[in-house]
């Protein structure tokens, strides 16, 4: 048993990789069953993600917010909180940042860019902290409250961009932000461009790593996540850290939305959030809640997402990507199943 236990400990990388491989195999079987060629489909997926310079740029642009929603969900997990509300936090952050950005025509870039980032994070932090407070003060489970806050955020955004904050023309979108509030483009090819947002996302990876591993806040948040009663016995306030952890998690999600405003759309659009909040869950689980693991996992998911359009052109609905993600998450939840498979493989036939 102890040998088995030791083996469980050092599978942080292998276990999610196996989950990914199994999910791709299952999706391939589904494709064969409906008469599609998985080799063609996965070839198109790969080409769509890495095949051209434009594809690679598109891929990195997709990875930028996903790194941040992955960090948001992962930070929550470290604090023992399941933040399904990254989507709502992202929307509120993006919406507030867009509003502020649209008022900054006369500002120089060195004021408007930091201001956008701060406002976007504050918006997300506020929305996240609300769920944290409801849990700390009222005992409401964050899974239900964050999901309700997601829906409420969507309705608020729809109301606002269909009325008080609507661009002229009757389309549900906000006015544009000032030029000074936009990220500069690093590379431009055809209709795609690479914005400086990727640096913000990578910086966030480093900052979150430092917060979790090197600061008192990180230590307290982890302690509450690991064993709240022991933490409280040791003088760490559960309530304070639950609210704080949700605020930090929400700030990261809000920053993800702000990336889309500053680097991609330059305004708030109804579909801006997409499925990035839910993708953040997949990413945090694959990345094992480790900031560096999350960065790699975000790039994996962005590659799948970026390539799925090409795959759709090749005749396989891109919804298969959601199925793949579902299977990955399922296998991470049932990781004892994956571990059992690994142990069989390792022990060899003679011991079974």
């Amino acid at each position, binding site marked *: 048993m102890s040998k088995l236990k030791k083996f469980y400990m050092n599978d942080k990388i292998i276990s999610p990789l196996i989950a990914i491989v199994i999910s791709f195999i299952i999706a391939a079987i589904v494709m064969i069953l409906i008469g599609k060629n998985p080799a063609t489909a996965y070839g198109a997926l790969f080409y769509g993600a890495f095949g051209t310079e434009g594809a690679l740029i598109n891929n990195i642009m997709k990875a930028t917010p996903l790194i941040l929603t992955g960090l948001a969900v992962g930070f929550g997990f470290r604090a023992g909180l399941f933040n399904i509300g990254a989507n709502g936090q992202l929307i509120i952050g993006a919406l507030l940042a867009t509003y502020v950005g649209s008022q900054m025509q006369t500002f120089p870039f060195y004021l408007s860019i930091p201001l956008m980032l701060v406002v976007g994070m504050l918006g997300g932090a506020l929305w996240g902290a609300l769920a944290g407070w*409801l849990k700390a003060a009222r005992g*409401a489970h964050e899974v239900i409250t964050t999901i309700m806050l997601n829906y409420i955020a969507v309705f608020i955004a729809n109301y606002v961009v269909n009325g008080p904050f609507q661009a002229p023309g009757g389309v549900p979108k906000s006015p544009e932000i000032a030029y000074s509030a936009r990220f500069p483009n690093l590379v431009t090819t055809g209709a795609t461009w690479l914005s400086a947002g990727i640096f913000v996302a990578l910086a966030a990876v480093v900052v979150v790593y430092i917060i979790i591993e090197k600061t008192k806040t990180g230590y307290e948040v982890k302690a509450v996540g690991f064993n709240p009663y022991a933490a409280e016995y040791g003088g760490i306030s559960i309530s304070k850290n639950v609210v704080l952890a949700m605020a930090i998690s929400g700030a990261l999600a809000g920053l993800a939305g702000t990336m889309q405003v500053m680097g991609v759309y330059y305004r708030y659009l109804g579909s801006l959030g997409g499925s990035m909040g839910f993708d953040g869950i997949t990413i945090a689980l694959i990345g094992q809640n480790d900031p560096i693991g999350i960065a790699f996992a975000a790039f994996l998911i962005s590659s799948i997402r970026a390539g799925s359009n090409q795959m759709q052109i090749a005749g396989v609905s891109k919804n*298969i990507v959601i199925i*793949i993600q579902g299977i990955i998450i399922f296998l991470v939840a049932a990781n*004892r199943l994956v571990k059992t498979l690994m142990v069989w493989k390792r022990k060899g036939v003679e011991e079974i």
Partner: protein
Amino acid sequence: MNAWVQAIINVFINPVFYRSTLNQSTPLIFAALGGVYSETTGVVNIALEGIMLIAAFGGVVGSYFTGNPWYGLALALLLGISMAALHAWASIRYAGDQIISGTAIILLAQGITGFSLVELFGKPGSTDLVRSIPLVNLGGFEEVPFFGKMVGSLSPLVYVAFASVVFSWYLIYKTKLGLRMRSVGNNPEAADTLGVNVYNIRYFGVLMSGVFAALGGAFLSIGELGQFTENMSNGRGFIALAAMIIGNWSPTGAMWAAILFGAASAFNDQLQSQGVLHLATNTQYLFGMIPYILTLIVVSGFVGKSRAPTADGIPYIKD
């Protein structure tokens, strides 16, 4: 202000509001009952949302290919129970994190329904119209003023929902099986010592949650209209969980809470359509968020007073 008072009165004196309340409550009652079964035995089930979605799709697919909505209902149940079985397998057999497993089921349901929608009907968004389960007409009762319009013609599933509440209450509180379910949810170690098979009871609880959530999902798609649209469960699985919590994990309590949510939703719809208010089109979004705000408030206000089964959400690992 006077217009608002008039509009609210108009809603309440119209039998359509009460009929709509019954229809909006039915899927929530089913799903909340599903939650009660699962969590009474100690397995948290946020997968309800996904089970409802895939069952709603199954209902339409079955009805579309056979022309018989009852086969649709059968397919809905089959798919719903299968998804519940997956959740049970991960969270009972492999002692997985129940919330993560539930999230996986939700994503799988979204992916499978979205994928199959395009494969089977050739376009994303929504399916063709199919035959829905025929309504039960109460003969001459439809002529009775007010009540005739209210309950004269309803889906049989509405009656099944209320009958299920009575059945579930009896099963959970008055039978030996119910006693075992509750003991496994509160103290699995003790139940195990007394010879109760914890795993089997938990499988039963989760599979029953699949049955009821699937009935709720089928009602959404083939209960009245006969169509499936993408993500049509639209958070109802989570609202049902809130109803279960407010109802203190009891079938009757969950039913009352589900009716409260159903009434709020029906009130919303009816109020918006009142001409005297002269509402701008974007106010639909303000009205739309009301059920979710209500859920948020109620979950935050009632949780202290209700008590989850002690071992709810904790995997049981037999030594």
